Structures are given as structure tokens and as C-alpha cells.
């Protein structure tokens, strides 16, 4: 498998707090990787650096052979890195269709008609067609998460970073979202998934990377992760692991 994302010696600190401590991580095209770890372990920081929202203190990130540290988020979006946010960032006063069009039209080569066609097809795929002309403010929390998924699709992404996409989502909707993640992955799109919901992680991902205090303490299959002593320690404390 071709390597898509290569992170080397990535370090990030906030004041005296080291959020990422010289992380090394390689991810191949088409992988579905779960990223777990206790609160404050550096998961979201890692995602924010890869998607251009944070600057790193040291290290490098290569995406499809290009060094992308220092790139702005919109530049990364345009080369196929899509992401969702822990707290959804849908445009509440814009309609669902307009929400979709933003990512389509950000590429000046795409006409409005072509972007609209594409957007409507994706909304249809997400069963949101009937809400296309409604303001996003009218959506439920779960639907807003779904809209974020749909918007990412407008980017024709090659790497998708999902930050707690299933938080507070109804089980039925959640299983629909699982299907979407699996469908992306079947299309050779790489997915990195952060979730506190271990059921989602172990159900979806074939590889799980565990962070603790800014270090990768385990990188393996779900079975290996579950059995790993360091992971248990990180989550439950020393006494339980022993």
C-alpha cells in the first residue's frame, strides 16, 4: 500500500504543556485508523496540525509526498484533506444546499450549475434532499453532523479526519454514518477517526493508534489494543492494569 501520510518527530506544546511529543506515524492510502486516548492526550491537536489549524513546534508532515506543515486549512482542503469538528461548524443561517456549495464553489473551476448538481446528488445520498432549501439552523444535532459529512464529500477528499463524529448521535443515524465511513473507505479514501466511543472505534477500524500525554503508546489491531497493558494503564490507571 502506498504511503499517504507520514508524520515525523511532530512536536507541539502549549506554553509548558507538551501536547505532542515527537510523534512518528505513517498511514497508507485507504487505511481506516482509529485514534484514541484519554482526554488531553493530544488527539485533536494532531488532527488540527494535519488539517492546518495549528502550527507545530517541530517535526514534519508529508501528505502524498508533499511537506504540508505551514499550509493553510483551505489549501489542505483543496488537495483533498477533509475534516469534521468536535462541535459541528455548519453554517446555520445558510441553507443545506448553500452549505454544500461553499466547498464546491471554493474551487473556481467548478460552475455553480455543476456544483449544484453534485451537491444535490450528495444530499440525496445522505437522505437530506427534502431539507435542501432549509436553513441549517433547523437541523437536529445528529443531522448537523450528517451535513458535515456531506459537505466533506463535496471536496472529493482523499483523506478524511473525523473528530468525535458520533457524539450525541441517535443510534439509527449512527449506523447510517458507519455505513458512510465504510463506503468512503471502500473507495480507497483514508479515514482517521477520533472517538471516545470504543464501540465505534473497534467496530470500524482495523488499526487503532493510542495516544497518552502526547506519545503513541500503542499502534495495532483492535485486539492488540484491547490487550495492551499500557493502554489499560492510560485509561484506567496503574492499579486496574495490574
Amino acid at each position, binding site marked *: 500500500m502506498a504511503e499517504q501520510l507520514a508524520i515525523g518527530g511532530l512536536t507541539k506544546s502549549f506554553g509548558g504543556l507538551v501536547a505532542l511529543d515527537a510523534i512518528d506515524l505513517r498511514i497508507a492510502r485507504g487505511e481506516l485508523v482509529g485514534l484514541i486516548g484519554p482526554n488531553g492526550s493530544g488527539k485533536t491537536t494532531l488532527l488540527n496540525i494535519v488539517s492546518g489549524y495549528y502550527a507545530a513546534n517541530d517535526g514534519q508532515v508529508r501528505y502524498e509526498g508533499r511537506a504540508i506543515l505551514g499550509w493553510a486549512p*483551505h489549501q489542505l482542503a483543496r488537495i483533498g484533506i477533509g475534516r469534521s*469538528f468536535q462541535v459541528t461548524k455548519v*453554517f446555520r443561517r445558510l441553507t443545506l444546499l*448553500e452549505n454544500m*456549495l*461553499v466547498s464546491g464553489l*471554493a474551487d*473556481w473551476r467548478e460552475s455553480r450549475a455543476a456544483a449544484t448538481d453534485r451537491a444535490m446528488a450528495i444530499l440525496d445520498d445522505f437522505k437530506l434532499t427534502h431539507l435542501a432549501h432549509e436553513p441549517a439552523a433547523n437541523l437536529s444535532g445528529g443531522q448537523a453532523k450528517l451535513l458535515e459529512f456531506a459537505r466533506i464529500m*463535496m471536496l472529493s477528499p482523499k483523506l478524511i479526519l473525523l473528530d468525535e463524529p458520533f457524539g450525541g448521535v441517535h443510534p439509527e443515524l449512527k449506523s447510517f454514518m458507519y455505513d458512510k465511513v465504510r463506503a468512503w473507505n471502500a473507495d480507497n479514501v483514508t479515514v482517521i477517526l477520533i472517538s471516545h466511543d470504543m464501540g465505534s472505534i473497534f467496530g470500524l477500524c482495523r488499526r487503532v493508534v493510542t495516544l497518552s500525554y502526547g506519545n503513541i503508546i500503542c499502534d495495532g489491531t483492535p485486539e492488540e489494543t484491547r490487550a495492551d497493558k499500557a493502554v489499560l494503564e492510560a485509561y484506567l490507571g496503574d492499579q486496574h492494569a495490574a
Partner: protein
Amino acid sequence: MIRRNSFKAAGAACLLLFFLGLPLLGLTDYWIYTLTIGFYYALLAASWSLLVGYVGRISFAQAAMSGLGGYVSALSVIHFNLPVAGGLLLGILLAGLIGFAIGLLTLRLHGAYLGLTTIAFGEILRIAITAEHGVTEGSRGLQAPALIPGGTQLDYYYLFLAITVFSLLLMWLILRSRIGLFFQSIREDEDGAASLGVDVTLWKALAFACSSAFAGLAGGLYAHFVQLITPSMMSLQEMGFVLAMAVVGGFHNVLYAALGGVMLQSLLEALRAFGEWRLVIFGLLAILMLRFAPNGLFGMLADTLRKKGKSHG
């Protein structure tokens, strides 16, 4: 959707006819003059709402930008013998450029910090123009050449109306293009917009530039109409007027904000007997609007008409 658009077009056509026909109702020169100044405020309020209502960036330097346009235009006509149109163009350009610079400098500022920075900037500009009286004549006022030499009040009325309509049309075209969508996505959520490929830095700065350029145009027109400008046109009190006009008219729509400009300027003259109390009334009106009708008077009116149209259709 088609119905809604034809409703809007019909409304805009009615308004245009109204303002075209208004002078024919036997208005005195005084009222024609007042309405012409009203168009100046309309343009200024619309340019402010372009930034605040659509991009979500606050600025209290709009009156200062208008003054900049006015002074640059007047001075370049006086000193460089530019034709008035050339002076206006230079004013627009410079206001746009400085707007772009403010946009870049304030990229990471939000809320109170952004507001305070723009106030400081506007005041610096006003005080600099007051202090540099060797060039600008300071508080004594700068005489600007006439826009239409020998023109009547009516000539100015129709010219201001035409330029205001043209500018609103231009703003509308910008706002309904993909640029308008980028603006609104930034207003809604900057990080979200960036994650979808919108160059937030560029569009935020360009929005400031665009809004300032329209303010510069307004100020230039004003200077060559009243033919005597003082730095007081850049004061925070003037800014307060513009703000009240946009808020009372409806700052989420450039047309409503513009109508607010004409309306409040007319009221300002009609209520002369109330003296300074008019400003208190406008301030209160703006506060009440923000609390009870955030879409402004014309936004509220349009909503009511639309609902009525629906229930009858």
C-alpha cells in the same frame, strides 16, 4: 423560488419609481437637497452592512473611510488638476487599499477588540486630517470643486440616485455570486469555511476593501456635492448615525440598510424642532430594533408582505 424573486424585483422596481417620481411631487429645493444627502447616507449604510451583515466583521471606521474618499478626491482635484471623476476614482482606490490593509491587520481580532481597533484607526485618520491643516485646511473646512458645475439641486438628486442604485446593484451582484457565499460562510464560522477550501484571510481582507471602497465613493460624492468638507464628517457621531441607519433599516440586507439611510436622514430634517433630542430618539430606536426586530424596519416589512402574499396566493 421564482415567485420570491419576482416579488423582490417588483419591490425594487416600485422603490426606484418612487424615488424617480418623488421630486415631481413639488418638493422644495431644501427637501431635494435633504434627500440627496440621504442617498449619501444610503450608500454609506449599505457599505457598512456589506461588511457587518454579510461577513460578520464589525467596523467603526466607515465614516472615516468616507472622509478619506472625500479628502483624497477633493485634494487631488485641487492639487493635481484631476477631473472630478478621476478624483473620485482615486478616493475609491485609496479607501479600498487602506480598507484592505485594515482587513489584514485585524484578521485575528474579533468582537470588542476588532471594534476598538477600527475606532482607533478612524480617529487617527480624523485627527491626522485635522492636524495637517496646511494641506487639508483642518477644521476650517476644505473647499471642493463642484461635481456638476452649475448643476441644480435636481441634477444632483438624480445623479446621486443613479450612483446609489448602480452601487447597490453592484453590491447585489457581488453578494449573490460565489463571493457572497464565501462572505456568509465566514460570518457563520471561519474555521468551518476554511475547512471547505475558503481562503478566509483573503476574503476577510477583500471584504474590508470592498466595503471601504464604497464608503470612499460615498465620501467623494458628498465632498463634491456640499463643496465644503470638514473632518467632522469622519467623527464617531457621524459613525453613530450610519450605524443607526443601517440597524433601523436592517443591516442584513444592503437595500434595507440603504433605505434606513434615506429614511433617517429625512427624519433628521423633519424633526429639527427636537434639536439634539433627535439623536437620543435615533439611539433608542436602534437599541429597540436590535432587541425586537433584528432584521430592521424594512426586513420586518418585507417579511410581513411576503407572508401576506403567501396567504393570499
